[in-house]
Structure formats: C-alpha cells, structure tokens
C-alpha cells in the first residue's frame, strides 16, 4: 500500500535584535516612506538543526547580499509597512498566494533554487522601539494533486559527502554528474538532491512540495526521485509519484505559527534592550531624520550634528542657544562665562535651578546640558574675556584668559557672541575673523534684538562693529544697576536665541534650496511684533574686521591685546578710524558757518 508523503514545518524563524536595529536605520536613513519590498538573505546552518526544523535567522547582515560565502543562503524579502494599520490590514492569504504563484513562475523559469524564498512583513514603531513582524516561507502544490511514496531507502555516507560542502541547497544528478537544478537539467536528470531543512525521520521539509510542483510541470514522468541529505544518519532517497492535476489552482501555505501554535504575527519590544543613553541618542536623531523623509530631504543633519559650538556668555541667550542647538542634534557645546548663577537667573535662564545659585555659570550650564542629554560633549570655562578699553589690572590672569579664549575659538567651528557688554564682543570678533570661524552675534534691547552672522573674507559682509566709527570702550564704569544689567522683556531672549540658531543651521546647509537663504542680520521689534532682514557691507576701517587689526593680533598676540585694553584709541589708529574721525571733524568744521548774528546753522 502506498503512503502519502508527509512534510515537516518549513522553518522556525529567529529574528535577532541586530536585524531590528538595521531595519530601523535603513527605514530612517534610506527607505524613509518607500514601502517597496527589500531583499534579504539568511545563512542557513544546516549542520546544527534543533527541534527537527531549520532555523531561519535574520541578523543585521541579512540585508547584505554578500553574506557569508561558505553558508547555504536563502533569499527573501522584507515588506515594511509605514503604519500599523496597513500592517494589520494586509490580506495575508492573498499575500502568500501571490508569492506562491510568483515562486512557481520563477521556479519554472530559473529552476528549483528560485522556487523557495521567505518573506517578512513588518512594521517598525521607531518611537517605542517595538517591531511587529510575521515571517512566511510559501509552500505550494496544485489543488487536487497529491504525492505518494513509492519507495524510500537510506543513503550511504559516501554519496552525501560529495555534495554536502556545496553552497546550494538544491541540485540534480544528470548522468552521474551533479548539476544545477535548472529547467534544462530537470528535464533529463535522474534525481534531485536537496539538503533537507527537516530532521524528522522519513519526513522532509514542506518546501519539497514546491520542488515537486515545479519539477512535475517541467518534466512529466512516472516517478520523481529526491535525495534528502542531512548531516546526521537520517538521509534518505524517496521515489515519489505525483497524482492528480499538477496544473490546477495553487494551494499555498507557509505563514509561521507563533509560540502558542496560532497563525498570528509576533512583536519584539526592544525599548529596554539598550542603554537608555543610547536610546536617547537614537530618539533625538529620529525626530530630526524625519525631516528628511518628506519636508527637507536634502537637509545636512550631519553637519549640524558634528559642529563644535562655543557659547560666549552663559546667560539667558547662552542657555536658550544651547538648548536650541541640542534640539538640532549638535553634540559639542562649550560654555564660557565669568560670573556665578545669581538668584534672579533660574527663572529666565533655562539651564539653571535654584540649587545652582552661587555656582560658576559656565560649569553649571554644561552640567545641566549633560543632565538633559548625557551624550553631549560639553565643558564650562570660567574666564573673563579681556575687554577693550578696560585697562589691564591683573596681567598674568588676563593673559591666561586670553590664551584660553584664543585656543577655544581655534578649536571650535562656530562662535556665539552672547555677552552683555558691547566691548566684550570685540576680542572674540577679531579672533573669530582671524581663525576664519563662523561668528553668530545676538544682542538684546528692552523690546528689540539683533541677530547677525559676521561676514567673512568671501562675502564682504560686515561684522557687529562695521557700522561704528569709534572703537568700543568701557561702558560699565559709573553706570547704575539698570544700565549695567540686561533689562529686557523676557520673551526677547527666546526670540533672539532661536533666530541665532536657526540662522546658523540655515547657513550650514549646502544650498539655499534646503532651508532658504541665511540673512546677514535680523532685527526684531517686539513693540510692533516686527522682524526686519538687513544686509550691511564690511567696513574697511572697522575696529574688529580691519586687516591691520587682524594681522597685528596674529603677529603680536597678547601684547596687542594688552595695548587695546589699556587704550582703545590704538585700535582706532590701527584700523584707520582715527583718520576717519579727523576727516569727519574737518568736514563738519568746513560745513559750519556763522551768520552775522553768530547763530549756528548747519547746511
């Protein structure tokens, strides 16, 4: 009496966490909204089969076509849906039926190796780090057909060793020679050799149905012989008869059952898998990378991320600028300030709390930033930026402060000038120009603000001091408290800080098509809720960007700074401002005439 051929489950899937990490990365950076199928590859370990069925392992390298050359590789694909709803509503019966039909056609066209394939449907919830997936390996046969075993016999070791080393899991024997199981050879071969995915005694893996369906459509014969090779002592050859119609409608199955034997998807919650710091890093990147999906595909996030920002002044502006940089993904922020956190600061300056009062501001701001995002590279320097027009009082300290400032500016890419006093901005402006750095300046009035980027050697745009015809000098001595402190409407600093960072980010982009063009200056007026864009040219006699000033600083370093601190007039002399002032005086004198009644009139 003949027995129907029975089959074991085709596979058992194991999806490593590395696969989900790679899927997340590809989804964010490469696939984006593209939900077309992507190729996968799985290296089958046919020598270490457990539970009688081959393990279909998916890892990060499963996306790589040059997977381990030594392994038997099975091709597959992943269809990653954009929404959980589309994942759930996917018609799984229709899906596998279509795949079965495609595999049959591929098998008929290209041979038995192409009629076995696995498919993964998935949805990656990148915010929650939860992945839904379901794996199938379609197995098919024509409706109404059946497979009867005519005979079986065990295979001697010698036969299987000849081909066990080969990479392919399927081949055929033509006149004693092992050949690829292509349509051409399948017509004439004596038998097919399959490195079986099953270890159940006398029961081959379910994909055998695919081989028999394809083979019987390519070559009509009374019986079909398949050798099922295994690495243990259970290899066998079976002579099989295909009965019934082999060209009827296809019966396709192959969705994997879950742990409880139900036909349903699986999910992996990886939220607790990684170090929370790493998760924070990826989550920040996630929010930013979503910009590239639809809104700004060409945005250069890496440039923003890798830039080293130096924040001079760790007050309200400094704190908000740092937070906005962090939100843009910038990983390297250094603070400089000379004072300590006062009791009035925490309510306006978002990096400080009540407990920080009394601590050096730069250090407290840096610590706070690291608390918000532990992966940020941040440091705080408590130093006094030497101010033009403020005579040297402690040379060794001031010289050291100058040297640290010079080194900080040299080693950063962008310098934010966010200090209170105007004269504090002079030296960093000159150093920024000397070291060819991006300099972003923000200054506050009571209900107005200025945000600008300093010009450079290429754009002929001005710096903060280019509109002045006098060099800055001591503006703090003999001033009342309200004149020395930044008295401003609280919202002005937020506006200015965010505009300063957005100006930088826009400026960093490779073209104006990405985020628009970066203006030179933005002036905001809160009393009218108005913003104006301005552009002013570089001034050849500017006290900060004049060539002589920069050259002198380059050549004389501290000695020149000391001179400028002691007497700001020397800078006016050097830049040519003195001459301009003299000429202006002369011009005024020439234009002033006195009438007969000695009344002053200006023409």
């Amino acid at each position, binding site marked *: 009496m003949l027995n129907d051929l029975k089959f074991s489950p085709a596979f058992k899937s194991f999806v490593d966490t590395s696969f989900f990490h790679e899927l997340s990365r590809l989804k964010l950076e490469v696939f984006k909204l593209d939900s077309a199928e992507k190729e996968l590859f799985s290296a089958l370990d046919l020598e270490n089969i457990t539970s009688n069925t081959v393990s279909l*392992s998916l890892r990060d390298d499963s996306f790589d076509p040059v997977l381990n050359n030594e392994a038997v590789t099975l091709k597959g694909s992943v269809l990653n849906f954009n929404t959980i709803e589309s994942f759930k509503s996917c018609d799984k019966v229709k899906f596998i039926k279509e795949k079965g039909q495609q595999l049959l056609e591929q098998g008929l066209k290209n041979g038995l190796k192409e009629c076995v394939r696995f498919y993964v449907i998935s949805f990656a919830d990148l915010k929650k780090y939860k992945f839904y997936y379901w794996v199938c390996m379609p197995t098919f046969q024509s409706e109404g057909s059946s497979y009867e075993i005519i005979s079986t016999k065990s295979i001697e070791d010698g036969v299987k060793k000849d081909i066990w080393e080969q990479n392919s899991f399927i081949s055929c024997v033509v006149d004693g020679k092992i050949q690829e199981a292509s349509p051409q050879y399948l017509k004439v071969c004596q038998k097919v050799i399959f490195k079986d995915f099953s270890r159940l005694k006398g029961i081959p893996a379910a994909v055998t149905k695919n081989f028999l369906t394809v083979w019987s459509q390519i070559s009509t014969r009374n019986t079909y012989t398949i050798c099922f090779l295994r690495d243990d002592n259970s290899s066998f050859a079976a002579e099989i008869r295909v009965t019934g119609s082999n060209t009827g409608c296809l019966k396709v199955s192959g969705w994997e059952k879950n742990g409880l034997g139900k036909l349903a998807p699986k999910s992996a919650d990886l939220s607790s898998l990684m170090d929370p710091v790493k998760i924070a890093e990826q989550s920040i990147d996630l929010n930013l990378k979503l910009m590239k999906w639809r809104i700004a595909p060409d945005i250069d996030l890496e440039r923003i991320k890798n830039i080293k920002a130096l924040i001079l002044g760790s007050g309200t502006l400094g704190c908000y600028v740092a937070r906005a940089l962090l939100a843009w993904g910038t990983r390297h922020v250094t603070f400089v300030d000379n004072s300590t956190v006062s009791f009035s600061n925490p309510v306006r300056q978002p990096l400080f709390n009540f407990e920080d009062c009394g601590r050096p501001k730069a250090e407290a701001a840096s610590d706070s930033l690291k608390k918000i995002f532990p992966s940020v590279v941040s440091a705080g320097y408590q130093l006094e930026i030497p101010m033009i027009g403020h005579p040297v009082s402690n040379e060794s300290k001031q010289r050291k402060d100058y040297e640290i400032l010079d080194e900080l500016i040299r080693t950063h890419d962008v310098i934010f000038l966010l200090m209170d006093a105007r004269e504090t901005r002079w030296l960093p402006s000159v150093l920024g120009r000397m070291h060819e750095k991006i300099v972003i300046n923000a200054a506050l009035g009571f209900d107005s603000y200025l945000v600008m980027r300093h010009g450079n050697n290429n754009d002929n745009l001005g710096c903060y001091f280019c509109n002045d015809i006098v060099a800055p000098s001591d503006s703090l001595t003999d001033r009342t408290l309200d004149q020395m402190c930044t008295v401003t409407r609280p919202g002005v600093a937020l506006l200015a800080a965010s505009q300063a960072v957005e100006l930088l980010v826009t400026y960093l982009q490779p073209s104006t098509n990405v985020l628009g063009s970066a203006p030179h200056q933005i002036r905001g007026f809160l009393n009218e809720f108005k913003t104006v864009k301005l552009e002013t040219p570089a001034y050849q006699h500017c006290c900060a960007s004049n060539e002589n000033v920069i050259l002198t600083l380059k050549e004389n370093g501290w000695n020149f700074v000391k001179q400028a601190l002691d007497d700001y007039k020397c800078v006016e002399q050097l830049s040519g401002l003195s001459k301009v002032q003299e000429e202006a005086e002369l011009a005024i004198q020439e234009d002033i005439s006195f009438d007969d009644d000695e009344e002053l009139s200006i023409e």
Partner: protein
Amino acid sequence: MLSLQQYNKQLPEIAKLVSRWDKASRVQLIKEISDHILVVNMRQKQFLTIELQINYDKVYQVPSIRFRLWEHALDDEDVSSSKLLFLSDVELRSIIALNSFSVSLSSDPTTKEVWYHVNNCDTDANVGTEPERYLLRWISLYLQIFDPTLNIMLI
C-alpha cells in the same frame, strides 16, 4: 587560557553537541572574520526563553558567555510579543542555577545592548588549561548554569 585558533577549531563540534540539547530551540554558528560566535536560544519556562551567546574573550583569552532573558506573552489580538526581562540577583537565581558563578549586567561596547555577563576570571581555575577538549570541559561546567542536567547530554 585557550588560543583563538583552538577556540575556533573546537566550537563547531560544541555547536553540534549543543544542538542535541533538548532545551535548545536554535543553535547557530556564526563565523565572523576573526572569532566564531555560537548563538543558542533555549526554552526555560513556558513564557520565558534565554538567548545566550558564546564568544571569545580576547583579553582573558578564554571562552565567554553572555545571555538575556526574553519574556513572551500573547496580546488581545493574538500577537505573540517578546520583551526583555531584567531581574534582581535573587530573582535570577530562581530561574537559573548560578551557584558560585557571578553575573553582572553590562552593555556591549559596540551595540550598547545590555546583556548579563557571566564572570570569566576564574575560567582556567575551573576547567584547567589543557587545550585539548577545553571547550567541552568548559560547556559541561558553564552551561549547567542554564541546565543542571546538561552533563547527561554530554555523555
């Protein structure tokens, strides 16, 4: 100590042995460029599986084992969900037979994934230094953490 060359040579045989382990639901030998890794998934309880990896510790030059626990559940829509489980030392000892072994949580320097690592400082003292059948001696001792009856399989 066991040389990397010896480790790579002995591991395939160990993989074959482990694939006979009735608790193992998957055994995969991954041949990386330098050292090989053996990945084993094993059933521990009805809704608990253990994923363990045997790899080579280049600093101590001994085999090393790390593992993590996966808790499985079925949601309202019959989706089988898996989630990592991190337990206190006491709870962990109720699931696996740590005995005198010490285990600590640490993150992988490359992937930042968190694993339980079995301390391997005393490996040579525990299994001897003779290279021949080193890995066999090693798994017969260290895999008992996960299955105290494992030695029967190795006979």
